[in-house]
């Protein structure tokens, strides 16, 4: 009788998972985008001070997490393209255009994707808050709120409940104030840091409004 062995190989993977959680919320005339500041790989922490939000222009912020190598490449590629657009058209790229470009750029790598989960936040042409979320191959959608990264599944239901007013039958739909959005972001990240090992150390919140981008740094659990 022939010996039957299951076939398995140890394979080198070009990707690794560096953890981290990101979140963006669009308000009436502002956007809030936040990320934790921990960079890790399996049970090791590389650094406690690496925010995952990248300022693309004074009113557009990209939050990106996943494999840090690809995150760096994605952010530099988008920044480069924005510069070229500005030289060619003599004006800054709009949030909508950056999102469209991001989608195209990610799909170019359909068969060897950038392992990065991206969320772009900014203000649209009318000055209203805009949040665009992407998957790894560039499928994108404009939304009111989106969480991404390792603790996304912990954050997203709470945002559905508190901002989307889901499963609340007797609540009036109130426009989201900046203060409520920021306090919600702090609460959800504190909860995520409790239960997700890849999220913690610090929280960086960028608030984008007509006046520009304001930044807040808040400490999180370091364990």
């Amino acid at each position: 009788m022939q010996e039957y062995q299951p076939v398995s190989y140890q394979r080198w993977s070009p990707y690794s998972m560096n953890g981290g959680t990101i979140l963006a919320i669009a308000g009436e005339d502002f956007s809030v985008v936040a990320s934790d500041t921990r960079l890790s790989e399996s049970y090791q922490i590389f650094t406690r001070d690496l925010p995952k939000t990248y300022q693309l222009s004074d009113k557009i912020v990209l939050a990106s997490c996943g494999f840090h190598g690809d995150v760096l490449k994605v952010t530099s590629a988008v920044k480069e393209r924005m510069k070229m657009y500005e030289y060619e058209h003599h004006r800054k790229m709009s949030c909508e255009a950056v999102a469209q470009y991001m989608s195209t750029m990610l799909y170019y790598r359909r068969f060897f994707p950038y392992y990065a989960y991206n969320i772009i936040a900014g203000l649209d042409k009318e000055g209203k808050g805009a949040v665009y979320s992407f998957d790894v191959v560039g499928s994108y959608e404009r939304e009111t709120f989106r969480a991404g990264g390792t603790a996304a599944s912990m954050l997203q239901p709470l945002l559905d409940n508190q901002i989307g007013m889901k499963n609340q039958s007797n609540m009036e739909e109130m426009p989201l104030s900046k203060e409520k959005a920021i306090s919600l972001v702090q609460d959800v990240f504190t909860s995520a840091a409790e239960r997700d090992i890849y999220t913690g150390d610090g929280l960086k919140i960028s608030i984008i409004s007509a006046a520009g981008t304001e930044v807040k740094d808040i400490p999180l659990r370091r364990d």
Partner: protein
Amino acid sequence: MSILEYNGVGMVAMVGKECVAIAADRRLGIQAQTISTDFQKIFRMNDKLYVGLPGLATDVLSVSAQLRYHLNLFQLKENRDMKPKAFMNMVCIELYKNRFGPYFVEPVVAGLDPKTNEPFIAGMDLIGCPMEADDFIVGGTCTEQLYGMCESLWKPDMEPDDLFETISQALLNAVDRDALSGWGCVVHVIEKDKVTTRTLKARMD
């Protein structure tokens, strides 16, 4: 695909002020297909002790019957109600008996001490490692979503009505982000003199 994710379930238990609540969704599926929308996953052991069984449906039925058998025998022999902590230990022993061929359920126990009415909740893995908590226990295919909701919404010493609202919102919003759970929810709020069971209106998908 894990065998614990074959049928799909969302379950949560929370502690309040002199009360506990346990809630679960009602879906029974075979992977993507929904078979039933009124599948019972929480079982009454006695007036102050409920056990929830998330996991493989066939084992939910087998284990609930086995636990009822053991509990009834205890009550007949000792002529008293079993304490929730003792019941939890019994479940752990029964699960560990099948260490190398386990039942694919990860029970959640919720109850009040029969004499002191002190709240008690606990969870365990499929081979009987117990975990007691003084806040909440989650189980099923949407544990991450439930952890996020519970961590933000739970606060200590909630009255029964407040506890009901909190556990309902936690479960409803978490199962809405999980394809394998949903189709309605059942919530039991256990107080020292009564148990209130409510079925929640939810997204039916």
